[in-house]
């Protein structure tokens, strides 16, 4: 049949039948296409996830054979003051970083959403810190905030203000980490909001204007509701990032001074690769994973309820 099909007279039905005939028996080709990704992705995620669960019920030092200890790791974890304070530091960091970066990002995006000269330069400058790695950020700010040689204290000195301890001060270190993360992470929220602002329907804004809405009225009743899905995404994305903060801590404070910046992931890394208690570390990782899962689920439920309300 295929031989009869000329260039000019392809009957769509024949074409579809031909396509269907050819898709039969495509299994081996399809498997050849997907197998590298399937092997690597599933092999390095599903297997380790289950392995981690097993590890969390074992005592393991990454070298000698492990021993089954049941729930002992979890029990010890719930009583470990170091873990408790790591959870606390992570929560403080998240509670400050997420709202400030999302709300700040929205504010800056609204300011940058206008056609004036140099606007693209402003946008670039606000965003550029985002592409700088956490390691490079950490090294840079360790230098800027060095109590002896840093530019920050040099500036304070010029202004006649007292010198600060910065990362060597247990009362300041965690907040400095939040500030550095805001410097680099807010730009991402700005870019995502700027893209979303392009999608605010112009007719709606105009209609609201005609109905007598002022600038703040348009913002409240038209712009912000259209941005809601993006805001929800950003809160989720930033929360997941904040709960997993590690690189910046590792480079700047190594969890110190006096454990004041030991966050959960730093705790997990320390237990596995410094004190070689891998089973205990796996239990902490599972606790974090469950927290992340709950955060994700809660947000999704909230979103579903909201859209449900909107539909009614």
């Amino acid at each position, binding site marked *: 049949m295929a031989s009869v099909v000329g260039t000019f007279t392809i009957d769509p039905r024949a074409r579809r039948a031909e396509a269907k005939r050819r898709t039969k028996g*495509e299994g081996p080709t399809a498997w050849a296409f997907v197998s590298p*990704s399937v092997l690597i992705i599933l092999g390095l995620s599903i297997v*380790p996830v289950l392995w981690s669960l097993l590890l969390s019920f074992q005592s393991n030092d990454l070298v000698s054979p492990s021993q089954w200890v049941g729930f002992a790791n979890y029990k010890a974890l719930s009583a470990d003051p170091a873990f408790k304070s790591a959870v606390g530091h992570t929560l403080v960091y998240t509670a400050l970083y997420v709202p400030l970066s999302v709300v700040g990002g929205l504010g800056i995006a609204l300011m940058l959403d206008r056609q004036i000269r140099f606007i693209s330069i402003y946008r670039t400058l*606000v965003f*550029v810190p985002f592409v700088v790695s956490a390691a490079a950020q950490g090294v840079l700010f360790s230098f800027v905030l060095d109590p002896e040689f840093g530019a920050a204290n040099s500036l304070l000195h010029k202004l006649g203000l007292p010198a600060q301890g910065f990362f060597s001060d247990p009362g300041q270190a965690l907040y400095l980490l939040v500030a550095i993360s805001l410097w680099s992470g807010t730009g991402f929220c700005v870019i995502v909001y700027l893209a*979303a602002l392009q999608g605010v329907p112009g007719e709606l804004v105009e209609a609201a204007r005609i109905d007598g809405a002022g600038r703040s009225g348009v913002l409240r009743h038209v712009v912000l509701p259209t941005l809601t899905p993006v805001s929800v*995404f950003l809160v989720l994305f930033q929360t997941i990032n904040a709960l997993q903060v590690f690189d910046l801590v590792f480079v700047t404070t190594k969890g110190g001074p006096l454990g004041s910046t030991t966050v959960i992931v730093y705790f997990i890394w320390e237990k*596995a690769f410094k004190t070689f208690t891998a089973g205990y570390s796996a239990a902490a*990782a599972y606790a974090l994973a469950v927290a992340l899962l709950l955060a994700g689920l809660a947000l999704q439920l909230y979103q579903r309820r909201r859209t449900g309300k909107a539909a009614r």
Partner: protein
Amino acid sequence: MKRLPFSPWHLVLAPLALLFALPLIWLLVSSVMRNAEINRFPPALIPSGINLGGYRFVLGNALFPRWFLNSFIVSAVAVTANLVFGSLGGYAFARMRFAGSKLLLGLMLATMVIPFQLTMIPTFLVMKDLGLIDTLGALIVPSLVTPFSVFLFRQFFVTLPRELEEAAWIDGCGRLRILVSVVLPLARPALSTVAVLTFLSTWNDLTWPLIAINHDSNYTLQLGLTTFQGQHHTQWAAVMAGNVITVLPVLLGFLLAQKAFIRSLASTGLKG
């Protein structure tokens, strides 16, 4: 009140943008300072001239160029592999019918929510069993393809009209041929998105190299930089020069391909 000759928004936006730029400006400035200028108290805020001693020190160091090469190899392989395996997998999931495809795609998507900390210890053990710990292989294998690349390609291919492929299909082209000569030339946005995001995450990664690499000749730039800082504590100019060299490829890439870069990052946000 007299009207300003420019938009009043500049009065807010210029200082704000400067605030974000300042640490990076300081990075550049301090990398060309003399150590004497940095080490006096209070340190100088403006260098007396451009001094390339820090750069000379870093590039003359036996290990630093090696770290750069290691980072480059790992990132280049990761980008290439993600483009190849991601587009192959994405195409199969978008266009081909095979038993279990829905289940597999679902599983792949589910793995995106697994935090890295949960898999890092067993991944370390797997790499150890494969004999890859402390080699670049340990960095390369886990980054060969991510579920995100496969998913992004699939989403893009699904939106392409089937008619485009049909002519080649009827002419007897195989799937691979269609993918390479018909579909991929149309998929530039997807290709650049995957390339940008893969490069950014592999070049900037610190956690996994920290776990998988022991010997300093196998370090990546990010890992080297963190130890460099301790070793040359008084040589801040050299440390900052090394930092500039670490940041530069990403920064240059960003400035050259700003549109593709921003589009790819924004699209991850909007489709999430």
